[in-house]
């Protein structure tokens, strides 16, 4: 399982980095989405892999941490996901505004001579 997760995070991250370095604003926004998956997963796995141990302490008599998945990275990631949505929206609006003002969807607001 470890190797699958590690590879998955790496591939998502690599795809994201590739896209973030592209010149078109839509590519960058897609890249940011992929990067946020990768980073969220990365933060999440710092709590290690736990199967069938959701952090729900329903039994008052069993409060042993070994019985549950680490709740801390989960809480961090939960808020990160929601904030990620907000920043995506902000970026999208800036992107659209820039496109309306400059007439191009290049991230710098102007086409380069050697257009990609």
């Amino acid at each position, binding site marked *: *399982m470890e190797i699958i997760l590690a590879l998955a995070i*790496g591939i998502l991250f690599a795809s994201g*980095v590739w896209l973030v370095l592209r010149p078109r604003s839509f590519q960058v926004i897609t890249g940011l989405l992929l990067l946020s998956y990768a980073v969220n*997963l990365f933060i999440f796995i710092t709590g290690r892999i736990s*199967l069938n141990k959701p952090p729900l302490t329903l039994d008052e008599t069993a409060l042993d941490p070994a019985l549950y998945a680490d709740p801390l990275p989960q809480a961090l990631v939960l808020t990160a996901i929601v904030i990620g949505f*907000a920043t995506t*929206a*902000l970026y999208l609006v800036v992107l659209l505004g820039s496109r309306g003002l400059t007439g191009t*969807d290049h991230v710098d607001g102007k086409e380069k001579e050697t257009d990609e």
Partner: protein
Amino acid sequence: MLLLSLILLPFLGAAVAACMPQHARNREAWFAAIIALCGLLLTLSQYAVISEGTALRYQLNWLSAFDLNLIFRMDGLAWLFSVLIQGICLLVVLYARYYMSPKDPVPRFFAFLLAFMGAMQGVVLSGNLIQLVMFWELTSLTSFLLIGYWHHRPDARRGARMAFTVTSIGGLCLLVGVLLLGHVAGSYDLDQILQQAEQIKAHDWYLPILILIALGALTKSAQFPFHFWLPHAMAAPTPVSAYLHSATMVKAGVFLLMRLWPVLAGTPEWTWIIGTAGVCTMLIGAFLAIFQHDLKGLLAYSTISHLGLITCLLGIGTPLAMVAAIFHTLNHATFKASLFMAVGIIDHETGSRDMRKLSGLRRVLPYTAALAIVASAAMAGVPLLNGFLSKEMFFAEALMVGSASNWWMSAAAVMMGIFGVAYSLRFIQVFFGPLQTDGGEEVHEPPRWMRFPVELLVLCCLVVGILPELSIGILLEAAAASVLAEQLPEYSLAIWHGFNLPLTMSIIAFIGGIVFYRWLQLKCNLRQRDKVPLFHRLNGKESYEATMLWLAASAARLERSLSSRRLQPQLLLLILAGMAAGAVLLWFMPTVPAQLTYTPIHWPFALLWLAGTACAIAAAWQAKYHRLAALILVGGTGIVTSLTFLWLSAPDLALTQLMVETVTTILLLLGLRWLPARISAKKLQLIASSRDKLRRSRDLLIAISSGVILSVVSYLILIQPENQTISRFFIENSLPLGGGSNVVNVLLVDFRSFDTLGEITVLSIVALTVYALLRRFRPAAESIKLPPQQTNPIDPASIQTPAEQAGSGYLQVPGIYIRLLLPIIIVVSVYFFMRGHNLPGGGFIAGLIFAVGLIIQYLLAGTAWVEARLKMQPHRWISVGLGLAVVTGLGAWVFGHPFLTTHTAHIYLPVLGELHLPSAFIFDLGVFAVVVGTTMLILTALAHQSVRSHRVPGANPDATNLQQEDR
């Protein structure tokens, strides 16, 4: 408490004065005067305590561990300065009542003036050095506002900026100096620092401390070579000049040197730095003053010179010089403030301050002339006036410097005396000779009460000059004793000390001054001369301007050479830095764990990620030419991520990710419409240049290597045994303390609810920003038209409104069940919300579910249809949500607990049974409302653009018709 009120009163007064009506000159002035008077009376009432030599002290602990406490202390010196500050403020307020024109915005003036007074009080009463620096900066700031009061005038703006730049640079130096001093002394408490004089002087850092603090004091007190800002600050209204630039602010530097005198003075370095600056300033200021044409300019340079004299006395460093310095500070404040006010009267009545255009004013302004002549006599040091006494003391001290053979200091002192007499003569010249005024109108004496402050100050000059011991002796002693403690020297304030050397020097100065002035008049055409001899090249203003220009230019150059406005290189650098950090991490990570613990591979999970990563790679590949496809592919990866969370025991995350995935996809779909059509390079038969290919390979390389690094780091983390973190606490206490079994939710709304409060605030800000940005949104011309899919004449749907499509058109079937779904989704949302504390769910998830339920109605039947039936007003949801969260937090205060402490109540309801209701539940309700509000605000604001854009002029007429049919 009394000390605190002395500081708070002016600031509160400033706030009130700022709110008063524009034209209530009298009320404003009365109000400000009452504030100043209250302060003055409070201060005076402490006279008995202070004169006994005890210091008042008030301490309010803040960060005691860092020695940052609010300390106010009042000893003799602070008391004297405090009386000076408040007393002159009172007179200046009275004067300003008549001076300010009815057209000026007076509330602003009095508000700034009171704020300045408060800041100045803060400087003199601070018992903590950091606090002193803070008030010090505040005086710079308020004086900036006061100098720039007539902000429509360019010279006022420039003067204000210059004064602010110079004094605040000094203030920064002072801050560093004070930090070093506090470090050496082990405390920022003034009382403790003053007891460690020996250790500080012996310390290695003594010299840097001295230089930095001296820089602060010298810039503030306009000492050479920083003196140039003061003449330019004369663009301020005259009451401001009288208050700030004669009596108070410029004295702050001197005050600081006096305050730290016991700690820093008495070394050769001190004498050299402070003394040299003082002597240079004193001579240059006095010399330049002679050649001014502007009356205020003359007074400004004379102020510089007198401040130089005080600094010089402090530099000499003997206890007697200290007494003389305090004495002269007081004397200078009285005669210089009265002279400034007299100039203000002249300016006010004649409309000019130019000495070339004015003469014979004695005939029309007899009283003012008499007062000004007496005050300038005090400035020149004529016997029977206060200026004479302190100047005699200065001469006496100058004689003591060095030995009998070293007479340089004495020569400088006499020279200063000669110049002082000369510029005083130049000043009173405007009152003599034939009558000549600038304007044509009748010149007459000012109103009675406008002259009153001048009269009072001149009276002080006379009383102190004639009866020094009786009038000022005891005050001076208390002030000097508070600095010098047991070193207080024997001194006598008598007028007549017998015929001795200082008196001879005075006489030489007088005769020399008169002769020098006559000579200048006859030989150098002083009255019309434009250039200052010898010193006209010494132009502080020009070098200041040049420095500022150079700084701005080099900053721009640096920015050009080091940074880029282009996004790609910036992102590249960011990613490379991240990679470097990852590589460093790898270097330090233990590669082989104690025991390898692998989880066996689940093959379905592997297949899932095969799909997930394939989606990601395909999205990366397609994002340029096939945006919709890329969006769908990214969504695929998102679903896989969500399933992964579910698989790995994080049900809350899985739910959140799933819902966010949904709204993000809708969001991007709404945005796609505004992006330009992109035809693939293959169709256009474009061939990528070799440079592009090179860049692509470089980016690919970076992407792959960063992926590899993150993979390896993740893998190494995963095979480490679990660490002990604070998670243990959360798991063990979530149920007993937080009252909920869902640890993640309890973490969010209880243990770390302050973080969550911050997060929902950010969410709200982002949503409002998005909304605000979209209000000004102007789409590109080619995307204004309706897309071809919607105008296809063969498609019957293209002539229907979205509502018709859903009602009777091709969307009839989904129309029925999606509308049916709305109440179900709301119930589901409520269900997830209610169980959130104990089972997966909570405000975030429920809010997202609720928002999605509404959004699909929009998707189905269009904006117009939904909004005709549902007034959503997401702004209100946001404000209600934030309000609920904050009120819940504040509620804890009612019970005496810290902010956001959770309180649990158990309520018994008839049908539902016992309800477990912690206050975190209400907090979570706030979160829920904010999430619904932000999501809806963002999405609907974006959706409205499609409806709105057709109104843009020049849009396709067909589209406009369609739009009309829409209604």
